[in-house]
């Protein structure tokens, strides 16, 4: 064998190894997923809050698929959350009580509406996208208000019955089943999202977000990829909404409200977008801040939350992750004064 082909083989192997290394499971990820288990044992009387965190985390993850990976901004992501919530709730009310198939149908309905509206969202720039997504969600909210015979209107959808998970685990008053159900669904969908992010599709989305002009110039089907990402993001949001309706056995108009769209955007910005964990970390921090501050100052908690958010955004544009990276870089510099700062 000649020397040339040997070095060729070596660099091929090195190249492949670099691709593998960038997508390897990190110890911090395993530690992160031990948190829900620890939470269950540490806070057995706060399972309702923990379930809310898991559902909000899934909702923020669904927005991350749009914003962090495909670069599509949205001010109306609650449209799909609400669609999922009402779909799962209405199914439960009218006799379709099996929870997992109910979630799947919620995902299908939200995904289908996401697919149809994605063609509106593709047109124009960020500003028009904000307006179009907002418009779609406002229309759906008004529709849910008007269709009171189906949705319960302003009174909310009551009488939702949900059967046992896997036909075995009944939803209990302590919220144990609800908690593990929400965390389990979140975990499975997160793994799927992580897989998609490491696929050719995920790499293409990063390319489109990074430079859509060049993507078109190398012959990539840009719009097809964006439509797919938007549809998947919508379906994920539908599952999150479905989880809320199933675990609380209730759905009301606020699942479609603008406030929910704005809140999930905030959650994602707190955690940082584009690396999948941002939505989950943001959900934990947001809910904990909310819980803590509203305990301390029940009347003014939003004021303190606002201050914390402004400080966070001013100190780091990439949320807590950016903050962490900056602190880590400074720490590395102070330990190795001769070297130039690393992580940034």
């Amino acid at each position, binding site marked *: 064998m000649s020397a040339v082909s040997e070095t060729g083989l070596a660099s091929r192997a090195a*190249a492949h190894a670099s*691709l593998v290394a960038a*997508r390897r499971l990190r110890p911090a990820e395993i530690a992160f997923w031990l948190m829900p288990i620890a939470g269950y044992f540490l806070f057995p009387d706060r399972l309702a809050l923990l379930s809310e965190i898991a559902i909000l985390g899934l909702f923020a993850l669904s927005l991350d698929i749009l914003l962090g990976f495909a670069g599509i901004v949205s001010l109306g992501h609650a449209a799909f959350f609400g669609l999922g919530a009402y779909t799962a709730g209405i199914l439960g009310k009218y006799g379709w009580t099996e929870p997992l198939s109910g979630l799947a149908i919620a995902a299908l309905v939200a995904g289908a509406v996401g697919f149809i509206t994605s063609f509106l969202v593709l047109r124009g720039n960020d500003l028009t996208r904000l307006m179009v997504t907002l418009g779609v969600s406002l229309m759906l909210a008004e529709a849910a208000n008007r269709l009171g015979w189906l949705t319960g209107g302003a009174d909310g959808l009551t009488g939702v019955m949900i059967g046992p998970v896997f036909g075995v685990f009944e939803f209990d008053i302590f919220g144990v089943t609800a908690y593990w159900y929400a965390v389990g669904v979140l975990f499975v969908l997160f793994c799927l999202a992580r897989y998609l992010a490491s696929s050719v599709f995920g790499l293409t989305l990063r390319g489109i977000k990074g430079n859509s002009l060049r993507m078109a110039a190398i012959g990539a089907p840009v719009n097809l990829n964006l439509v797919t990402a938007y549809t998947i993001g919508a379906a994920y949001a539908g599952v999150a909404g479905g989880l809320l309706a199933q675990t609380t056995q209730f759905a009301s108009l606020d699942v479609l409200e603008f406030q929910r769209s704005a809140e999930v955007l905030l959650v994602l910005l707190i955690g940082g977008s584009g690396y999948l964990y941002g939505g989950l970390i943001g959900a934990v921090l947001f809910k904990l801040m909310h819980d803590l501050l509203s305990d301390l100052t029940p009347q003014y908690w939003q004021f303190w939350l606002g201050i914390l958010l402004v400080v966070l955004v001013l100190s780091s544009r990439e949320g807590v992750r950016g903050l962490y990276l900056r602190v880590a870089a400074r720490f590395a510099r102070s330990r190795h004064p001769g070297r130039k700062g690393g992580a940034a």
Partner: protein
Amino acid sequence: MNAIASPGVAGSTALAAEGLVKHFNGITATDNVSLTLPRGARHALIGPNGAGKTTLINLLTGVLKPSAGRILLAGEDVTTASAQQRVQRGLARTFQINQLYAELTPLETLVMAIMQRRGNLMRWWQPVTRQREACDEAVALLERLGLGSVMAERTSTLAYGKRRLLEVALALACQPQVLLLDEPAAGVPHGERDEILETISELPRDVTLVLIEHDMEMVFRFAERISVLVSGALAMEGTPEEVAASPLVREVYLGGAHATATAAHARKGA
């Protein structure tokens, strides 16, 4: 997949423009331009600023639709084809200002481009790490362009000259039959331009190259034929010697006697 031409049609036309016209709000940016590039041509497109070079490129690549005229790629009419379809039929370009992916490594960039070219829907959902063939092809291309040592570094951290080479590598990953090079050495210090020109000269002869360039030395060293664009129209077309000798060209573009000397010097050097 790109159609690979058989050697029998080696003499055929790779890219042709017939009477291209483009109006913008009453201004004629491209004025009845016709070009014929035989397969394997080494063609340069020159002209002063505002001559309509960029508009012409955008018309050829499908970013803009012409007001009149036709574009033929390997004999097929692609006037109404989208930019994406033209890339798939073998027309690629580089950009005067780098259009790269700051967050990706050169390796990831090329693997991504190669996967677009293959367009395999089954593989679309597979992990990037399983694309061994695309990875091997990307490594071979990166090494050919002297980017082997930086292939796993983030593009945003690369030296400017390396990014310029990646710009060319990315276009080559599309396996073009016709490659439009928009000032490939723009912004590169004079001493490092040779590396880029060498890379371009070493491209296989069945790829048709069109160079849009300001650097006259580079144009005369590279091109076998030159088209001169003035005010959107084709002022003349000819060999480097003919262009350098043309009084018209010297007047509007080259600025006098200097050009003849440059051309003669470049020919001797080549």
